[in-house]
């Protein structure tokens, strides 16, 4: 565990002792990456927000029994992943490719970029988003945990509850498919 991981655990333990400011600090560190992981996995803003809120609710509820045995971020993503799996069962299919694309494209482009550059960048982003969207759930989860959350293969395996080789295989397949679709 590196220093920031220790910090996370310290903050969580402080929160368990009643330090609300510690939770705020912990939340600030992980809110963005967790939200993006859920949004790109669930492909539905409302569902992503619901799962985001529920994940943090579970963190809050688990504060008394929390012990820093694993990285906080891994534990957090495990909870989120469990919730995602449950939601897959409930709501499959979540959104069509076009709907998902529309959701993910509702983004303001940086103003300083030139039109040609914006167009090509937009196209590349669009392709990547579509490629991620088209991945099977397990592969999409693996690649998002890697690209968004920067997890190692071992950590991906831990979050998704599979063996290291399975996680690595999923990640490799996902990467290959993304590269193929970007190259088309």
């Amino acid at each position: 565990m590196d220093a920031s991981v220790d910090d996370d655990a310290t903050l969580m333990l402080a929160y368990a002792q009643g330090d609300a400011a510690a939770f705020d600090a912990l939340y600030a560190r992980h809110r963005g990456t967790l939200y993006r992981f859920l949004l790109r996995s669930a492909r539905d803003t409302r569902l992503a927000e619901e799962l985001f809120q529920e994940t943090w609710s579970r963190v809050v509820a688990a504060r008394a029994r929390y012990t820093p045995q694993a990285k906080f971020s891994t534990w957090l993503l495990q909870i989120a992943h469990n919730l995602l799996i449950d939601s897959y069962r409930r709501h499959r299919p979540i959104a069509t490719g076009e709907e998902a694309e529309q959701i993910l494209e509702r983004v303001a482009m940086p103003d300083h970029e030139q039109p040609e550059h914006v167009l090509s960048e937009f196209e590349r982003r669009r392709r990547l988003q579509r490629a991620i969207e088209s991945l099977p759930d397990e592969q999409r989860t693996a690649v998002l945990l890697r690209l968004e959350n920067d997890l190692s293969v071992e950590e991906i395996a831990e979050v998704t509850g599979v063996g290291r080789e399975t996680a690595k295989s999923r990640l490799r397949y996902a990467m290959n498919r993304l590269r193929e679709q970007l190259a088309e």
Partner: protein
Amino acid sequence: MNTHDHDDNALPGEDELKALYRSLPSHEPSRALDETVKHAARAAAPPRRHVPRWPVAAASAAVLVVAVGLGWRMQQQPTPAARSAPAQAITLAPSTSTSTSSVATNAAPAMDELVVAQTHAPVTTPESPKPRESLRAALKPRVQEPALAAKSTAPAEVAEAPVAQEVAAVPQAAPVPAPAPMQPAPAADVSNYAGARSAMTMKTMAGPAARMTAPTDATAIDPRDTPTQELDKIRQLLVQQRRDEALQRLAAFRQAHPDIAVPDDLRQQLPDHE
């Protein structure tokens, strides 16, 4: 959070994909969502307790008093050899001390006889002032130890312990027998894995007689089990075609351990919700 090893970094084309991914819009939760989460966290946080110091001081003083008292009492107790001597002591000085109270009140005139009586039977002269002073001096360093010990342990005793930790601590402290076979319990009971564990603990603590007669069941809930062991038991239940029980245990497990991902083979057994 970059913890990749060399093997991980060997994934082809990853750097390019990462760079492109990072150029994607950086979605953030809305401010309203932030506030909702933070508010819930604040509401759930236990109030910070500032433990007052006076109970620690009072406990230390109480321990000091008890220690002095005990030490004094022990000092006054007769040795095994002396226990057989009281009768002899009384007969040695019958004319000078008719009772212990008279000895105490008339200590000076009867001191010679009293000294004789003390050597044979110290228990007959507990009120003697001189031994008490010397005893106090002798006990002084001894009573400091419990007082210090009390100081060091008192904060831990008064510190608030989470309920879940207490529940978890009980089964480790109590010896657990071969558990009784699982009865198909009502869904409401079994859905709460923690509840089932604590109920199991209560049973084992309350029924030593039942302990002797309970048949062994390798798949029964054991509060000492690690999550992995519990998952293995759920697998065994599935192998034994006890699917309903396995699903109940799995549901209870997920509820009790939301942070532990259920392995694929077991997750696939979960029925679709709704």
